[in-house]
């Protein structure tokens, strides 16, 4: 039947040579496509993994039909030839006018065909085109068979176009030479352009063409956007400079810092755009209500520098802190619901951060390699992965050489002395001792902070305080953060661990220290909040009492009960303690002192040290540069942990002090420049090989942990503690989240309110939303981290087994090897080793018949590669790729490309 059909098609097509060629190409696909299904099974049996045989079998089947064909001779030739032939055809087509038109018409087929009936252009060319098209159409609608055929053809063509598209999308992942890639790309693109329009049918055609056009535009837009986005990424060159000086590990800190900056910028945008700026622009001005006014008693000192530095006085009654915000339900002309927005931003901050952190982790997990068991590949890894290709600085390179040599020597010594095990008891004892010491110091530091915070509460009631007494908490916390890590490091010397393990311990301990400190601080703070809450009750009563008294006095003095008394001066109103602002101030103070300590440490610990070492070296009795003080090294783990904890404080404090986010953005910005300068000017590259393995996700994991830990107290306070009665956006409500209830009741239609009140206890809404976000992301997360590794491990084991089974089977026909061979330059140039026989056809029985080429022996690892290399492994299955010599289908299909690449002489280039 197909033969007959082709005959018919041919007869019709005979008119114009070029046309026929093209038409044939098209027509041809279909029968082949259909026929393919029949021989599939047989071919599967017969075929090994070579494309050749795949090509061969159906060719024979075609028999007479093929011979009849004009282009029959091309079929007998190799695929390669067919390609060449095709190229020629193309060129010919391009050269001749008619041919060109044909191409055009084909390209526009989708659009043109749809509208060819309606529009009549007097252009000669168009007329010609149309004629042709009519012919096409008639040929399509001629008989029933034609119709059904074209349907199959459509499906097949569609498939092929999809494949080409995939190829275009993935071409950058192929290990081909650029020239070949460019060529394939061009081919695929012309193919897609040509046939995309032909897809879809009837009325859907127009829509399809439109869709295709939009997709193209969308892709273009995406690319432009991507270009724009990468152009916007700041500090690229700065980081590159650091990278080339210090290698990838130090740079990873700066990349992390930049990432943090980006995230905080978004948080800053939310907080300022939705809370701070509306309040400033539309809210009541300073001095209008008590909460926005400095109390009379504080006014004389409210502008003193020392008071402002403590964030008291005018600072306390500013937009930076919670207490300043008014509880008006709507503000301004726009009826902006500030309290609601405040709560939503507070929660949204956490939601957004959670999302971003988890997404980044998932992305990193994608890329990040295996974690590898220690010791499985010690030497190979050292050999192949220890050189940091980013290094572009001679000094660093020398250091790297030295450290690699040392590590090799160490490994050799380890290897040689692996057997003898000296005094294990002593080592165990030392390790226990070290851990004991560290736990002691952790407990000690925790207690110290608790003690200090308690003491500061006592101090809070007194006025005669020195500067130290006022800032005791911050100073002690910063000092602990400064002194404990080196102490731990010293203690860790006792343990005598492998440096990488030691680093992990060190990080864990510092983390525990920071966490302990933070939480001790929090608990102490909660104590304070509770006492404030008790005070508040009393003050509330006395405040109301004072108000009443004022009015009573007024009416008594004026002696006119009719006149409304002028409102009380806001500065004179008795205030509650406003615990939210107090908490906010604590966090801001902590953050600021943390910034100061960090910057001073850099200035003194690194810069001053570098200056001294550099200049005193001329007149000193020993070599300062090489000897004792030497220059500092950049402390990656310490800096990262500092950053992470700082972020934790921001998350916790941002709800009570919206201005904190702004401070943090400034801090990150300045620290980018400052630390970049400091590291370039004062630090020297690491002497040891610093293994920052998968560090990015490790840091992200820390960040996630901190995020949860800082989420807890904030959510706890929002859910359980009553807001202050006279300050902040939620004053006057029993709980902060009552704002949501209020909105539901007042702003939404009544029935919605009832639904909501039935549906959920409002106290559950917020945690439910947060939990939902968390769950949806953690599912992805768990999938990536837990299931994927197990699956791949299972496959790896399998692959290994298979590999062992095939030990003596030397067949090396897999896709990757082919590609590798492709990459080999001209073989005649290779001095050594005769080129391996390119066409090693493996014994068919060596493999399960259904296995795809390449995947047979290599299990998952290779399968991945194959999938990558050929976009769609099925491409090489019989269904989608016809073996015929011509037709655009055989031209540059992913499968075709590889088929060609398989060492049949030099690949096309």
């Amino acid at each position, binding site marked *: 039947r197909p033969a007959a059909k082709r005959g018919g098609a041919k007869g019709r097509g005979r008119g114009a040579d070029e046309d026929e060629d093209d038409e044939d190409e098209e027509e041809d696909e279909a029968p082949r496509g259909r026929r393919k299904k029949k021989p599939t099974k047989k071919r599967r049996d017969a075929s090994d993994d070579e494309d050749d045989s795949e090509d061969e079998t159906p060719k024979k089947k075609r028999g007479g039909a093929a011979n009849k064909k004009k282009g029959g001779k091309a079929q007998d030739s190799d695929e390669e030839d067919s390609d060449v032939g095709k190229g020629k055809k193309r060129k010919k087509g391009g050269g001749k006018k008619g041919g060109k038109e044909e191409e055009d018409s084909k390209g526009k087929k989708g659009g043109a065909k749809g509208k060819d009936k309606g529009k009549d252009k007097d252009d000669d060319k168009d007329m010609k085109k149309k004629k042709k098209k009519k012919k096409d159409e008639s040929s399509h609608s001629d008989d029933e068979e034609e119709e059904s055929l074209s349907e199959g053809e459509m499906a097949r063509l569609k498939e092929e176009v999809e494949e080409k598209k995939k190829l275009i999308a993935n071409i950058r992942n192929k290990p081909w030479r650029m020239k070949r890639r460019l060529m394939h790309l061009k081919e695929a693109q012309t193919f897609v352009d040509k046939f995309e329009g032909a897809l879809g049918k009837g009325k859907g055609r127009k829509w399809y063409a439109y869709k295709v056009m939009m997709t193209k535009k969308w892709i273009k837009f995406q690319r432009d956007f991507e270009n724009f986005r990468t152009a916007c990424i700041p500090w690229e060159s700065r980081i590159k400079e650091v990278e080339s000086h210090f290698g990838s590990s130090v740079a990873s800190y700066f990349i992390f810092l930049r990432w943090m900056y980006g995230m905080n910028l978004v948080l800053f945008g939310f907080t300022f755009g939705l809370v701070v700026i509306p309040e400033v622009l539309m809210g009541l001005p300073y001095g209008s209500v008590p909460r926005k006014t400095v109390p009379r008693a504080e006014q004389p000192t409210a502008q003193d520098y020392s008071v402002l530095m403590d964030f008291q006085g005018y600072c306390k009654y500013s937009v930076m802190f919670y207490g300043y915000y008014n509880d008006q339900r709507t503000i301004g002309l726009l009826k902006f619901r500030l309290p609601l927005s405040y709560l939503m931003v507070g929660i949204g901050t956490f939601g957004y951060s959670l999302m971003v952190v988890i997404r980044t982790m998932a992305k990193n997990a994608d890329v990040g390699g295996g974690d590898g068991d220690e010791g499985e590949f010690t030497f190979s890894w050292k050999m192949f992965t*220890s050189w940091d290709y980013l290094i572009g600085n001679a000094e660093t*390179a020398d250091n790297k050489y030295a450290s690699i040599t040392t590590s090799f020597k160490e*490994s050799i010594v380890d290897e040689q002395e692996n057997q003898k095990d000296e005094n294990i008891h002593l080592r165990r004892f030392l390790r226990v001792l070290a851990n004991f010491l560290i736990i002691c110091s952790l407990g000690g530091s925790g207690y110290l902070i608790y003690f200090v915070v308690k003491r500061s509460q006592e101090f809070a009631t007194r006025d005669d305080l020195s500067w130290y007494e006022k800032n005791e908490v911050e100073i002690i916390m910063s000092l602990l953060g400064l002194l404990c890590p080196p102490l731990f490091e010293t203690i860790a010397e006792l343990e005598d661990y492998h440096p990488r393990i030691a680093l992990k311990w060190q990080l864990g301990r510092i983390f525990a220290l920071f966490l302990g400190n933070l939480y001790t601080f929090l608990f102490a703070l909660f104590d304070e909040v509770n006492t404030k809450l008790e005070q508040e009750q009393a003050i509330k009563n006395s405040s109301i009492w004072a108000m009443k008294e004022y009015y009573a006095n007024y009416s008594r003095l004026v002696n006119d009960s009719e006149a409304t008394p002028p409102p009380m001066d806001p500065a004179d109103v008795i205030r509650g303690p406003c615990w939210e602002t107090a908490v906010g101030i604590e966090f801001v103070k902590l953050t600021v002192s943390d910034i100061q300590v960090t910057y001073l440490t850099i200035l003194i610990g690194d810069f001053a040290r570098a200056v001294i070492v550099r200049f005193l070296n001329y007149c000193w009795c020993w070599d300062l540069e090489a000897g004792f003080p030497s220059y500092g090294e950049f402390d990656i783990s310490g800096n990262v942990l500092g950053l992470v904890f700082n972020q934790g404080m921001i998350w916790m404090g941002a709800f009570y002090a919206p201005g904190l986010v702004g401070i943090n953005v400034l801090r990150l910005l300045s620290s980018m420049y400052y630390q970049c300068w400091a590291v370039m000017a004062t630090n020297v590259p690491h002497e040891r090989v610093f293994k920052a393995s998968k560090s990015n996700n490790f840091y992200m994991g820390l960040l996630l942990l901190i995020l949860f830990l800082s989420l807890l107290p904030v959510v706890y306070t929002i859910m359980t503690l009553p807001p202050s009665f006279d300050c902040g956006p939620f004053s006057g409500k029993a709980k902060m989240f009552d704002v949501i209830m209020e909105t539901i009741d007042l702003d939404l239609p009544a029935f919605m309110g009832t639904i909501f009140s039935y549906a959920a206890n409002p106290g559950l809404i917020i945690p439910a939303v947060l939990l939902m976000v968390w769950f949806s992301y953690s599912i992805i997360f768990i999938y990536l981290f837990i299931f994927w590794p197990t699956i791949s491990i299972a496959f790896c084991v399998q692959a*290994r087994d298979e590999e062992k089974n*095939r030990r003596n089977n030397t067949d090396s026909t897999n896709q990757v090897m082919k*590609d590798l061979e492709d990459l080999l330059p001209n073989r005649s140039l290779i001095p050594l080793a005769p080129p*391996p026989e390119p066409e090693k056809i493996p014994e068919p029985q060596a493999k399960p018949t259904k296995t795809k080429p390449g995947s047979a022996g290599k299990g998952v690892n290779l399968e991945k590669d194959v999938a990558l290399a050929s976009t769609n492994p099925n491409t090489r299955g019989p269904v989608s790729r016809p073996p015929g010599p011509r037709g655009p289908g055989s031209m540059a299909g992913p499968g075709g490309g590889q088929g060609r690449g398989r060492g049949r002489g030099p690949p096309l280039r």
Partner: protein
Amino acid sequence: MGNKQTTFTDEQLEAYQDCTFFTCKEILRLHSRYRELAPHLVPLDYTNNPDIKVPLTLIITMPELKENPFRERIVETFSEDGQGNLSFNDFVDMFSALCETSPRELKTIYAFKIYDFNRDNFICKEDLQKTLNKLTKGELTPEEVALVCDKAIEEADLDGDSKLSFSDFENMISKAPDFLSNFHIRI
């Protein structure tokens, strides 16, 4: 697109963006870097794909490569003639494969090529020795070198032919923690 003169047509830029991991700006930067290497050789105008190659000796003077112990191998691997002469296509190809966003699979393939000094599609003891000597600047004694090479082969060789085939190499490198972070060059 330069201010006065176009270096590439839009089409070329699109094609390069499809074939590499670079953005438009980066490709233009690559071109200017490429041109810096041999200003008299490389024209500013690349719209007609001139067939120009810059020799290895010039390429390895780039700061990105000049400290790399494997610089010659890298350049040779990516050059089409195997001699280290890079056309602009090869040049772009090289940095695309080594850039941060290129996938592990691609990097593995090229790493294998780079470490396969004698280009026989296996990393044999000889290759390992060369690698090691380059990495340590020949600081290890011959016995140590031999020991390390034996150990490395013992660890990674799955099929027992005492040389590393690509699958051995891939299996080994896919578990390496530092491979991705270290095997990249930022341009």
